[in-house]
């Protein structure tokens, strides 16, 4: 009874906060509701016994990705007056993407009846004493090693691309060079200059 109750609490919170993401007027509230739905999704994973995935969702999505969303939205200068026009402009695209995703989920749910065995999505039930983390590690680093590495490389390329796009060396920015500071001594930093005071005064 207790897990079922928790399941309904988590899933209802996900649906409610997902709706609030769309319908709240302040974009900042939208992001906060999005974060809330991420946390509830990780709760669902916990209920399913996938504790590693649940915490990775919190670390990656909530702790890293959503922080960036929040940063960007906080720094945007947002005008709540023309929200209706903006919504109208993006409504068809949003509906299309949502429709495609919905169709795909329906397809996945009914895949055993629609497709032959080769195309089915196979869930494997592993019955061992190993923990979640160990099973995942065993699978990722043996059977799915190539896919895992490829995903890693794609992320690496994306990261390098982002750095290349934003990196500019500006000459006017003064930087601290620690080695230069430490290697200074009295012979290089103090300079004695002879000033001929008499000639200066005579020039005046």
């Amino acid at each position, binding site marked *: *009874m*207790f897990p079922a109750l928790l399941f309904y609490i988590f899933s209802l919170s996900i649906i409610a906060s997902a709706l609030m993401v769309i319908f709240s007027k*302040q974009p*900042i509230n939208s992001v*906060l509701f999005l*974060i809330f739905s991420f946390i509830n999704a990780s709760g669902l994973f916990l209920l399913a016994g996938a*504790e*590693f995935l649940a*915490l*990775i969702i*919190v*670390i990656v999505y*909530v*702790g*890293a990705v959503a*922080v960036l969303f*929040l*940063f960007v939205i*906080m720094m945007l200068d947002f005008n709540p007056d023309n929200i209706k026009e903006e919504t109208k402009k993006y409504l068809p695209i949003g509906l299309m993407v949502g429709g495609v995703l919905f169709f795909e989920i329906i397809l996945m749910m009914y895949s055993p009846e629609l497709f032959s065995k080769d195309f089915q999505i196979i869930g494997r039930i592993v019955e061992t004493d190993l*923990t*979640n*983390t160990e099973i995942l590690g065993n699978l990722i680093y043996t059977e799915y090693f190539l896919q895992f590495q490829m995903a890693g490389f794609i992320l690496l390329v994306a990261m390098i691309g982002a750095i290349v796009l934003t990196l500019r060396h500006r000459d006017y920015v003064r930087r*601290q060079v620690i080695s230069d500071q430490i290697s200074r001594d009295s012979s290089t930093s103090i300079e004695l200059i002879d000033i001929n005071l008499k000639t200066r005064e005579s020039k005046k």
Partner: protein
Amino acid sequence: MMIFFMSYILPLLIIFLQSALVLLAVLLMAYFGIYADRKIWAAVQLRRGPNVVGPFGLLQSAADLLKLLFKEIIIPEKANKMIFILGPIVTCFVALSSWAVIPFADGWVVADINVGILYIFAVSSLGVYGIIMGGWASNSKYPFMGAMRSAAQMVSYEVSIGFVIITVLLCVGSLNLSEIVNAQKNIWFIFPLFPMFIVFFVSALAETNRPPFDLPEAEAELVAGYQTEYSSSLFMLYFLGELAATFLMCAMITILFLGGWLPPFNIFPFILVPGIVWFFLKMAFIFYLFSMVKALVPRYRYDQLMRLGWKVFLPISLACVVLTSSFLLFFNIAP
């Protein structure tokens, strides 16, 4: 009815009591932590520190607490009220909820979960939200910029903390905190992984906004940070959250490097002392080091802070992950 009570209500009550006990311990630690911090700081500067309220000034923290509680909560007029109030609550909640998985002694833990260390890492990565929300909702330039600074600081040092944790986990082979402690029965990890201990120690200082990385408290040069507009009990919640996070970091260092509740030598006089005493002694020692750093080291500038995080600690910790795993693999001693 009886079965329902035995199977649902009673476990819930037990969990509730355990959590209340842990929270009480954390709050007591925070209470005496402030006092110890101020006394040590004062002793280094040849001052007396708090010595008026109560014997030896022991009630000073209580007086401060009362003062903060009974002040008026001022919310700026153009602030986003909901998020303004939510910010400190999130910070405090997150810092306190991490304590659920900390094993104080053998088996003394509220939630002995398999992925304990991931849980701590995940929950403490949520601490950024309290800071960003508070800074943004204040609707003022300086708190906003301060929030950006602190958020960037926390996110950067989280990376190297993660790598240090991975190095320790490589030597343990489990994400369970109790097993991490039990793996140190022969030798505490501070000895083979000493460079990692240093990296973790400094990153912990930066992660919890302790000096010398306490930019949010630099009111003279940076107009403080995200909590500039906060007052009274909301400010206290930020303060409490920060202290709880600091003690959490002390507990983490104790568990990861100093062998948790294990005695220093497994021989006669030492094994008589219960594990929880060792745990708190080690935590107190780490907190003493934190206070000494506060007293001795001048504050970092922001660009120096970022440089240290990204250009020094990240490469070192990354290299150590590779080195440790290669070492373990080469000598075939990986768990």
